[in-house]
C-alpha cells in the first residue's frame, strides 16, 4: 500500500505507523478540578474506546514515522484500500512553514 504524503510524496505504508479513527481529534473538554459526572465519563469512554469501523470509506490517522514525522489524516476505503484523500492533521496555518 502506498500513501501520498503531502510533504514527502508517495511512500510505502511501511514508513508510516497507524493510529486509526480520526475522531480521536475531538477530545472531550472536561475542565480540570470540576467533579466528573456520568456525562463526562460517558463522553470519555466513547472518545477513548468507541471507533468508527465502516466497511466503506474511513478517515484515519497515520504518522509518517520514517519520514517527515507529520500526523496525517487519510481517507481510505476499507474493502479496496483505495486512498481518496490525504491531508496533514495540523492545519497549514498553524504549521511552522508558511
Amino acid at each position: 500500500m502506498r500513501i501520498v504524503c503531502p510533504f514527502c510524496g508517495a511512500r510505502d505504508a511501511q514508513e508510516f505507523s497507524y493510529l486509526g479513527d480520526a475522531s480521536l481529534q475531538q477530545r472531550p473538554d472536561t475542565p480540570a478540578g470540576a467533579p466528573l459526572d456520568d456525562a463526562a465519563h460517558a463522553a470519555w469512554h466513547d472518545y477513548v474506546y468507541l471507533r468508527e469501523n465502516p466497511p466503506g470509506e474511513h478517515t484515519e490517522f497515520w504518522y509518517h514515522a520514517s519520514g517527515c514525522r507529520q500526523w496525517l489524516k487519510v481517507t481510505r476505503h476499507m474493502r479496496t484500500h483505495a486512498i481518496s484523500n490525504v491531508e496533514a492533521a495540523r492545519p497549514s496555518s498553524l504549521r511552522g512553514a508558511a
Partner: protein
Amino acid sequence: MVDVSIPPVVSALAGLATAGQRLGFKDGEAGVQIAELTGVAIASIAARKGLADDLSAKVQTLFGLPLPSEPKRVAAGDVSIIWSAPGQWLVVFESGGRQRVSDLTAALRGLASTTDQSDSRAIIEISGPRVRDVLAKGVMVDLHPSVFAPGNTAITLVAHVGAQLTCIDAAPVYQLMVPRSFCLSFWDWLISSAEEYGISIGAKGDPKKG
C-alpha cells in the same frame, strides 16, 4: 573559543573502513565509491509559530539561500540547507565547526528553535556507475533522474534504518545521512549490497575539526 587540548570528534564510522581500501568484487573498476564526509557541523532549525517568513528572510540574508518549502537541498559555498520536515531544516556547515552552530543559534534567536545535531548523523557520499543498483536494494523511493534530480532529498526507511537521502550531483552522487547509533548496521547493509559490484573507499572533509 576552541581549545587545543580538545580531542578530535570521533565519527560513528571510524574504523569500519579506511580510505583507499577496495572491498568486494576485485576485478575491474569498482562499481561504487563510498566516502564519509567528516568535519561537518549540523544545526536543525525549526521555525517558531507564525515566523516562517521572517526566518526565511533572515536565512536569506545570512547565507544567500532560501529555505526550501519542499524536500530539497540548496547549497552555496560551504553551507547547505536541507528540508527535514514542514517548518524544519538542517543547516550543514562543511567548515568552521560547531562554532558555526552557536553563531546561527544566536542569529536566529526568537525566530527559530535551533539545535546542534553535528554529532547525530554520519554523512556518507556514494557514487559510481552502479550506485543506483546498490541503493535500489534498500531505498524504496524512485531515484530515476527524471524524478529524483540533484537537489532532491528524501527522508525514508533504508533496510530498516531511518535515513535521509539527497542527490547532490547528476553523475550521480548521493548523500546519505544516517543516525549515528545505527551506523554499524547501515554499513553492514551498504557493503553487502555493494560488494558484488566492487567498492572503493574514499574520504571527504577534514576529520580534525571539532
